[in-house]
């Protein structure tokens, strides 16, 4: 039983950042802008928020500091994503190109800035993790559920779940969501009924920036004690989760869970006797999440549909 609790807790460490970032990507692509810059945005969000923690941790600590850091990550991610929005929306740029450029820019820029800002001239940014919650009051004492979901956790886990629910509601139940989706499917139709395609696309990209920024912070805080200008390819994995999740919030959550669980198995099989004793090599375990994803895709891709207008710059004049 406790192994199961453990697996669930660990799965969250992989799942939450992947899901949050993929949901961000969903808003961007649903508005019609392909965002392969998620990796770069995560790095920028991680950079500024960890730098913020690094600077502030003398005076602040715990959840308040984390919440402020989340705000910093949100703003910096959104700001960085505007470079992509400007290229994709105003300049009608090829979205793959500008995304690639930002993925290249982010690590170089954050190393450069870290070296400039930090007195020691190093590129890593240290922080002390004062954010873990041993046990959530009240909820943590509920039998089974408490141990599974409310012990040894971070507020970012609940933030992730909240983001999922809010994303789904915003996308499907609000005026904003309806208009956003229209812009990603048929921008001419949206334009013809007076919806500003530019505004919606800017909003979509900005949300993707915010969520990817947050995702960068979550990634670093839960897995390390310093930031070194990378997020280990999780931005690209989030992109894969987005596609795997077929641009739908619930499916994205499912895909992130699936992938996170597979990752957990492959990283922790050595402490699960049942798995350790199987005649399977460590490298194979490392490959399992990726192979499993491919296999699932083979069976689920036949009817996969991306937003129709994603990746196509919107030109008012064109028909």
């Amino acid at each position, binding site marked *: 039983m406790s192994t199961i609790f453990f697996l669930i807790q660990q799965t969250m460490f992989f799942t939450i950042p992947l899901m949050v970032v993929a949901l961000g990507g969903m808003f961007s692509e649903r508005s019609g802008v392909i965002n392969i810059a998620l990796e770069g945005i995560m790095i920028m969000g991680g950079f500024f928020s960890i730098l913020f923690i690094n600077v502030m941790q003398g005076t602040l600590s715990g959840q308040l500091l984390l919440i402020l850091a989340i705000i910093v990550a949100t703003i910096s991610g959104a700001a960085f994503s505007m470079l992509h929005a400007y290229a994709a929306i105003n300049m009608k740029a090829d979205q793959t190109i500008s995304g690639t450029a930002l993925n290249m820019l982010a690590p170089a820029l954050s190393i450069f800035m870290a070296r400039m800002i930090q007195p020691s001239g190093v590129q890593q940014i240290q922080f002390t993790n004062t954010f873990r919650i041993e046990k959530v009051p009240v909820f943590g004492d509920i039998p089974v559920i408490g141990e599974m979901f409310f012990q040894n956790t971070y507020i970012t886990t609940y933030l992730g779940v909240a983001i999922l629910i809010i994303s789904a509601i915003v996308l499907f139940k609000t005026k904003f969501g309806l208009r956003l989706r229209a812009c990603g499917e048929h921008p001419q139709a949206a334009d*013809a009924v007076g919806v500003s395609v530019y505004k919606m696309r800017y909003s979509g990209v900005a949300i993707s920036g915010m969520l990817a920024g947050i995702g960068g912070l979550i990634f670093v805080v839960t897995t390390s004690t310093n930031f070194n200008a990378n997020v280990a390819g999780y931005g690209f994995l989030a992109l894969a989760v987005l596609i795997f999740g077929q641009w739908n919030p619930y499916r994205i959550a499912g895909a992130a869970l699936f992938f996170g669980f597979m990752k957990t198995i492959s990283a922790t099989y050595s402490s699960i006797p049942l798995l350790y004793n199987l005649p399977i090599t460590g490298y194979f375990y490392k490959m399992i999440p990726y192979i499993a994803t491919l296999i699932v895709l083979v069976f689920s891709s036949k009817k996969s549909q991306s937003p129709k207008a994603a990746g196509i710059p919107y030109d008012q004049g064109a028909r």
Partner: protein
Amino acid sequence: MDYIIEMRNIVKEFPGIRANDDITLQIKKGEIHALLGENGAGKSTLMSVLFGMYKPESGSIVLRGEPVQISGPKMANSLGIGMVHQHFKLVHNFTVLQNIILGVETTKNGFLKMDEARKKVMDLSEQYGLKVDPDALISDISVGMQQRVEILKMLYRDNDILIFDEPTAVLTPQEIDELMEIMKGLAAEGKSIIFITHKLEEIKRVANRCTVLRLGKYVGTVNVSDITVEEMSEMMVGRKVILDIEKEYKEPGKPVLEVENLTVIDNRSKKDKVKNASFKVNEGEIICIAGVDGNGQSELIYAITGLIHADSGVIKILGEDVTKKSIRYRNTHGLSHIPEDRHKWGLVLDYNLAENLILMEYFEDKYQKCGFLKEPEIIKYAEKLIAQYDIRSSEGTKTKVRSMSGGNQQKAIAARELSRNPDILIAVQPTRGLDVGAIEYMHKEIVKARDNGKAVLVVSFDLSEVMRLADRILVMYEGEIVADVKPSEITDKELGLYMAGAKRREAI
């Protein structure tokens, strides 16, 4: 004055072309005003200016006596102007209801309130006889219903100036009748309607006045009751147009295309789209397949041309069973195909004209050697076709097809398919969206092929086209061939009954 809307001296330029050159258009309240002109005359552009999608270089718009600057569709809507676009602007994976409310949603605390919207839509639908299913996805409904959705969109916004850009090009005769009635009803209620169409008899039927454009310039405005169809078309083209085809009787030769008990089942819905269809097309004969859109015509043609595979039955070309053969095999063994959707199937829009003209033959020894393309040969051939079929474009063989007008794109496809000297020519909706001049040309080419002993199979939703072209008419209804008649033996009305499924032939 008592014009509800006046567009004065509108000039609109695109790179390299003046699409609207000093055009004036005056619409009276409560009238149906037709806008007439050849392909590329500037009709859609002018309407886009009125709808705020283009900003004109010069000119002014006066609405109900007040000069206005229309900054965008949103403002146009708020001024009461609505538009049904030539290419529908509907989100394919939204429901009917979602499409109607998009842009004018009612919300409570930021959440959509669909119930009120639904009631209003249903009321309007009842009041104007515009039958729709509010919860159906656009991708699942017929073109006719999609158009009703577009009209409901305007009514939902309480628009009283309604623009219809070529609304009938995609409708069946019955649907056209319905639309005409609806338009008359709307006008009677005091709404003003601008109606763009290439079909002069429709103008005759519903319009009060008609403004004619030619090559971006204003030609004149006339009272429809004062003018004949012939005069109108002369005004538009600048010369006389002969739409009636001179076709001599020809005894059909041996069968070229034979379809036996063909059945096609849709992968997704598992419904049979074509049921047990059998027919023959003979040398020197034009067979037209009539029917309401969505009754299996597309699937029938796809199966014959190999784009989808037949679930059962046999297809023969010149006696050879090709049911299991590849598309390439059929194309090289006597089959030519002018597809219904020229942008989806017919052309590689990013290829230039020459490349598109050899799209079906690039692999032939004429155009390649050891896998290398023979460029001089290709250019020479393309230039020959361009001259022969009068394909107009800005840069000749090098023109990107994307930048060509719809009519000329269609000509390019026709040139390519006809010049391959096929045994069986299949043409689907060959004149869709073309102006009368281009239609005249297209029809001539089809008849010429027949006269040269080719077998021709035409699919059309346009009854007048069917009546004019066909030596024999097949009617498809729900995947079955329900009639096989000669045009001389049947009236439009009777044909309509077959198409609506109200009548079927007794036995085959």
